[in-house]
């Protein structure tokens, strides 16, 4: 149990959560502004800055590294803009070219220096969060991991920037033209945002490594984007996702003895997958479910209306209809089942279906809606009588009492549809 709840475990998860908080808040802006790949580019391209900082201070994540990363982060943004603007390259090509070049420089500096100094290349590239709690410093009597000294201040700076410039960032992200018109410099916001990306990248390096930082930036924010439509709730959800990734990622990785950083990315990806499938509003499964429910409702209502019309003619409907095939059979079967359970339809001993009293009431409303709509179309659009039915067949499911009332008013108490059949009273 010690590996899951001990001191090292506690610090590792806390480091992951602090890094995740800054990353996912900044990531929300990246996802909304469709600049995820610029974030990816910066997280790769700050490597030489970090390497130079490491050369100067002999440690990763110190103040020189942060400054180096900020310089290279802005340089990346600038170079991409030069290639895209003056060089007239497409944006994706510019991004790809710039970050791989700068990343290569960084790798070469680090491998060169790794022989002289005690630098773990793996740690910089792929993250070694599990080693971070072993490097402790004492602050006012408490022993805390050294990385917290950069992670916490960076998180506080990021959060206060987001808090202070909430309105500016929000307007510039959703409507840059409006922002410019209101006197908010879009360029300034852009570069401020890119500096924030560079800062969270470098501070999160020890937690997740240079390549997996992008997982912390983009994946929680994208997950939140699927779950909510408001910026503030998007940020909160993103932070929650990153915390869950840190805790579960650490536990699973510690249990099977593998890379914590990699596992954090995988857990974040798993949560994203869940959101893709089951998000209440945008999830694929929930959407399919809603469509299915609608299809069942329409099918049930069609059955009711058909029974009503047959009753008008003094006929009844056989329970199993041969006109459906494939998915239609299931749909028909399920609709029949639901109608019976709701007591709208009953089966006679002869096997025929007939309306119950409440079913007849519901069916009358539907047929009323259908014939009202036909009359309305016939009156106002001068369509041939044989063109009215199909449109009304679709609309009847969506004409509520209010709309019915308005149509009735407009038709001035007509009591039969264009085909001469009576419009049932309410």
């Amino acid at each position: 149990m010690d590996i899951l709840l001990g001191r090292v475990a506690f610090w590792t998860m806390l480091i992951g959560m602090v890094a995740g908080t800054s990353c996912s808040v900044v990531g929300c802006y990246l996802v909304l502004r469709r600049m995820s790949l610029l974030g990816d580019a910066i997280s790769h391209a700050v490597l030489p800055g970090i390497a130079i900082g490491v050369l100067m201070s002999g440690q990763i994540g110190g103040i020189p590294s942060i400054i180096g990363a900020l310089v290279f982060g802005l340089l990346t943004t600038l170079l991409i803009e030069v290639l895209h603007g003056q060089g007239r390259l497409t944006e994706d090509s510019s991004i790809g070219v710039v970050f791989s070049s700068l990343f290569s420089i960084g790798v070469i500096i680090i491998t060169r220096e790794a022989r002289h100094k005690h630098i773990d290349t793996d740690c910089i590239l792929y993250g070694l969060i599990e080693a971070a709690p072993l490097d402790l410093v004492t602050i006012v009597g408490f022993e805390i991991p050294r990385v917290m000294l950069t992670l916490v201040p960076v998180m506080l700076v990021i959060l206060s920037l987001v808090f202070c410039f909430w309105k500016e960032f929000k307007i510039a992200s959703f409507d840059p033209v409006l922002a410019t018109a209101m006197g908010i410099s879009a360029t300034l916001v852009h570069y401020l945002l890119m500096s924030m990306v560079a800062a969270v990248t470098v501070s999160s390096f020890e937690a997740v490594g240079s390549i997996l930082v992008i997982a912390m930036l983009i994946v929680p924010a994208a997950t939140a984007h699927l779950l909510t439509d408001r910026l503030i709730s998007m940020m909160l959800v993103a932070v929650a996702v990153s915390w869950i990734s840190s805790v579960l990622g650490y536990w699973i990785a510690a249990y099977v003895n593998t890379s914590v950083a990699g596992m954090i990315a995988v857990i974040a990806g798993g949560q994203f997958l869940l959101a893709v499938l089951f998000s209440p509003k945008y999830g694929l499964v929930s959407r399919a479910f809603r469509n299915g429910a609608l299809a069942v409702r329409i099918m049930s209502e069609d059955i009711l209306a058909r029974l009503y019309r047959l009753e008008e003619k003094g006929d009844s409907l056989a329970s199993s209809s041969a006109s459906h095939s494939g998915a239609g059979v299931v749909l028909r079967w399920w609709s029949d089942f639901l109608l019976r359970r709701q007591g709208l339809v009953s089966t006679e001993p002869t096997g025929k279906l007939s309306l119950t009293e409440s079913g007849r009431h519901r069916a009358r409303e539907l047929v009323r809606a259908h014939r009202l709509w036909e009359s309305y179309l016939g009156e106002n659009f001068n369509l041939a009588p044989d063109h009215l039915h199909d449109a009304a067949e679709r609309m009847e499911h969506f004409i509520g009492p209010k709309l019915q009332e308005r149509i009735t008013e407009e038709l001035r108490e007509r009591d039969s549809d264009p085909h001469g059949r009576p419009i049932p009273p309410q």
Partner: protein
Amino acid sequence: MLDYNTAVVLVGVTALAVTSGVVGTFLVLRRRALAGDALAHASLPGLVGAFLLFERRDLYLLLSGALISALLGIAVIAALRRYTRIKEDAAIGIVLSVFFGAGIVLSRLAQNRTTAGSKAGLDSFLLGKTAGMIYQDALIIVILSLVTLGIVFVLFKELKLVTFDPGFAIAQGWPTLGLDLMILSLVAVNVMIGLPAVGVVLVAALLILPAVSARFWTERLDTMILLAAGFGAIIGITGTFLSASFDRFPAGPVIILTGSFVLGISMLAAPRRGLVVQVIRDYRFRKEIECRALLEEIYEFAEQRSWPTKEQVLHRSGERAALRRLIHQGLVREMGNDHLELTTPGMRRAESVVLGSRLWKMFLDTHPDLAGSLVDLSHESVDEILPPDTVRELNELVRLQGRWPSLSAR
């Protein structure tokens, strides 16, 4: 200096880089430059997974695994774009990082299970290692390169159409989706054979660097492909020698930096799109505009009163330089007591400049609605841009208002 091993590596890497240039051209022009990156990162879990599953370090087995997970990654990106509200950029970022994370997780598991020797083997796939390339590997690379080049050669017309006008290609009933998939699978194969040499992280850059460099030099697809292949060859040869001489550096970054250097040169020195030429062109254009403005000012001053003194027309420091240029060109001459005068050729030039400017202003007055789409005030004359009947109408209006430049006739 060129021993057998280096020769093998040289042939392999060069063939790889040449094909990358050719295939990358389509990727860059199709604006899919980062699809290669996603493909490469997404290949890692398959590569390590194949190793874990079969417990063998057979290169072709590993690369098959890599190909499967790379294609899965691309499919996930396409599905996210098609079925969710996630945009392409985020989709690429997500697939890239999550697949790569899974790859790291698996590779750590592989390290736990096996000895240190095989660990080094898997590690070299991250940042590349050319030294391990043997004769068979180079042979496979060359064969696959030839196949790829052959396909591009045979399908050149089709690929060209799909690249530049996919809408037209669809309307003509071409199998656009199939051709797109064809490009993507060429990219995938190319990434796979590049993995051992350049590494997961940087192999995609090898695809775009030669193509992007070539883009600076030409506007034609066939020239661009040939140039990209040539740049690929340069990158391959130079990169191999460099990474052979700096043994302790991973090969990927060395090769990519060679490519960055080629790109830097192209960006600066290319004849029409290069930055140096652009800066010179901008500078000349600014000078030209300043000269025209000064000519116009002298002319209009003389039109209303008499020849101006220097103080009357020179307001900013830039105008002094413009005046020196005009005098040097023999368009303006200095009279006694600081007066300036237009020479005969100067007068002709000034009248043409002034007429152009008045016609433009008249056009702005009479057709303010068209101003945004048509007006290019940097053009001295309206004739080249506006339709002839509009030009006649404008000429008439300027004459009627008595603003036709006619100083030379006085």
